[in-house]
């Protein structure tokens, strides 16, 4: 099988299990984001792929070949560190050429490759600059160029954009994605920023407490979260208690949702629905009704906070598609079945 395969990879530090039995297949040319809160084991997993940590259990395979015991410097992977780790005593060109120098490539070829890479990261003519004279974004590009110098089999990035300001970060996300598509290189990025993951990834791997919670394309993660952890971590969501009535129908707050199906064997569950999917109507007989507690009018969209079925539901809508209400009013809440995701408790 081509690409990277993780088979039951684990990492324990003393009594702490940082990564627990992770199995994942990353096909050749895929852009993967490892996403999760801090301490979820995503960086440890990336470091194991790079060979900087030895797994306590499991195997790593690249194109079907076991690389679990291969030393970092023999893996031919490119890695961008969170701190960037540019060598302070070398200039931009020397930093980028380091991997080529190690492999004993001729000076002229090194020079040609450095110019090529600098053009690729939009920094032509910067080869002679000292690294400490560069801006944050430029340092970032140099680190990327350095990691790509030998056309690695795998391109690994550990929170690469976290040191940049918000505007530059957004621009770099797009640029990084375009670069990856141009080179067709298998890329794994660790991030805690769900927006970053949604922008760049083909495959988002949501991690929590050392486990993979869900691995799926970004839209699927958003639309069909596997559990309430994923639903809460990716975007904002409303979680409502769902129960089964005597005739087996799904009930929220005493109101039957005819098209929502509770999985067999479950009497109670959670219903997840995104704020933009909650429809607001005039109060109707037999429908879910709540009381408006707060309005956040952002001009383009309005967030309506509604107390319904014992919790607060947030609905995001444009001014045109919602009834004109103020705090304290009663309002009808419709939960379209196609937007509802039933999650285990």
């Amino acid at each position, binding site marked *: 099988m081509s690409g990277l395969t993780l088979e039951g990879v684990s990492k324990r530090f003393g009594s702490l299990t940082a990564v627990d039995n992770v199995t994942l297949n990353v096909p050749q040319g895929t852009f993967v984001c490892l996403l999760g809160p801090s301490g979820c084991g995503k960086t440890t997993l990336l470091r194991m792929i790079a060979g900087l940590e030895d797994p306590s259990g499991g195997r790593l395979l690249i194109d079907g070949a076991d690389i679990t015991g291969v030393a970092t410097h023999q893996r031919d992977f490119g*890695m961008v*560190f969170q701190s960037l780790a540019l*060598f302070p*005593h*070398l200039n931009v060109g020397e930093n980028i050429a*380091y*991997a080529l120098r*190690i492999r004993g490539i001729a000076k002229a070829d090194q020079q040609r490759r450095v110019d090529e890479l600098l053009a690729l990261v939009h920094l032509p003519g910067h080869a002679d600059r000292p690294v400490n004279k560069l801006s944050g974004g430029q340092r970032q590009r140099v680190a990327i160029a350095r990691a790509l110098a030998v056309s690695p089999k795998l391109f690994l990035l550990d929170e690469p954009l976290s040191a940049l300001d918000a505007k530059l970060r957004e621009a770099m996300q797009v640029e990084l994605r375009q670069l990856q598509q141009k080179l067709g290189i298998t890329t794994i990025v660790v991030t805690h920023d769900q927006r970053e993951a949604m922008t760049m990834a083909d495959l988002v791997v949501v991690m929590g407490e050392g486990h993979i919670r869900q691995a799926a394309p970004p839209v699927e993660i958003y639309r069909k979260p596997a559990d309430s952890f994923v639903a809460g971590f990716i975007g904002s969501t409303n979680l409502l208690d769902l129960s089964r009535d005597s005739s087996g129908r799904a009930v929220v707050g005493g109101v039957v949702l005819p098209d929502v199906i509770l999985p067999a064997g479950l009497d109670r569950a959670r219903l997840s629905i995104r704020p933009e999917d909650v429809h607001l109507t005039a109060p109707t007989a037999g429908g879910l009704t709540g009381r408006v507690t707060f309005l956040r009018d952002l001009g383009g969209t309005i967030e309506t906070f509604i107390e319904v079925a014992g919790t607060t539901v947030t609905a995001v809508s444009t001014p045109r598609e919602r009834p004109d209400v103020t705090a304290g009013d009663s309002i009808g809440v419709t939960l379209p079945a196609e937007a509802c995701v039933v999650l285990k408790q």
Partner: protein
Amino acid sequence: MRREPARSLSDHLPVIFPALMLLVFFVIPFSIMIAVSFFQREQGGFYTTDFVFSNYERFLSAFFGGVLGFSLLLAASVAACCVALAFPFTYFLTCRTRRVQIAWLVGLLSVLSLSEVIIGFAWSTLFSRTAGISNLFVALGLMDQPTALLPGFGAVLTGMVYQALPYTILVLYPALVRLEPTLLEASRTLGASPLRGFFNIVIPALRNTIVATLIMVFVFALGSYLLPQILGRPQHWTLSVLITDQAIYQSNMPFAAAMAVFLVLISLALVGLTLLVGGRKDLTA
């Protein structure tokens, strides 16, 4: 950071005390010594005020030149050995847990509390034929019979390296602790073995620290006069030994002062040269 230039007297206050200390305990004594080095020695007495170059002329002989050369060579060897031993040691120490690091540092600090005399006699015992480490080697079958490892250049060097090593480690430690650990990891991901990464990333990244440490140990070792006498033969005596001999036993203050001034000038020149060579690479880099 930009600072406002100091205007009133109170702005200068913080530097007055250190400046005063430096003046009273360094500038004035050193000036007196320079003055004395031009005085005329009085046979059987002390010295008379004068302005002669005879003390410096006497120094410019093959004998004193040889002693000066040996002193510089010994100090340079001690500096090189100390840094060569302390750098890898300190590097691996910083990779350990904090508890281990603290235990080692406390141990090293306690070595500093030993006086030079105790270190000298401890090593002279260790190197002796009757009770020294050669007996251990014989017991292990590495040697046929116990031998005296002193007096000799090796013994002097060992003693002085032992004495200067804790200083070296304590000076290198802060810089190595602050060294970004990902630098070496980055070199590994780029295809350098850990050893190769150590030599072409860790050491060059800390070049300034290494140069500063070499200079510190060099200057420290240049002033040593007890260990060469305890562990060495007369040909291993340093200029500091001769200065002490002239000043205390021969009562020739002017000549001792002249030698001391010469030693200071030579070591300042060497330090300056090292900084110049070290600094030039920064400009071209």
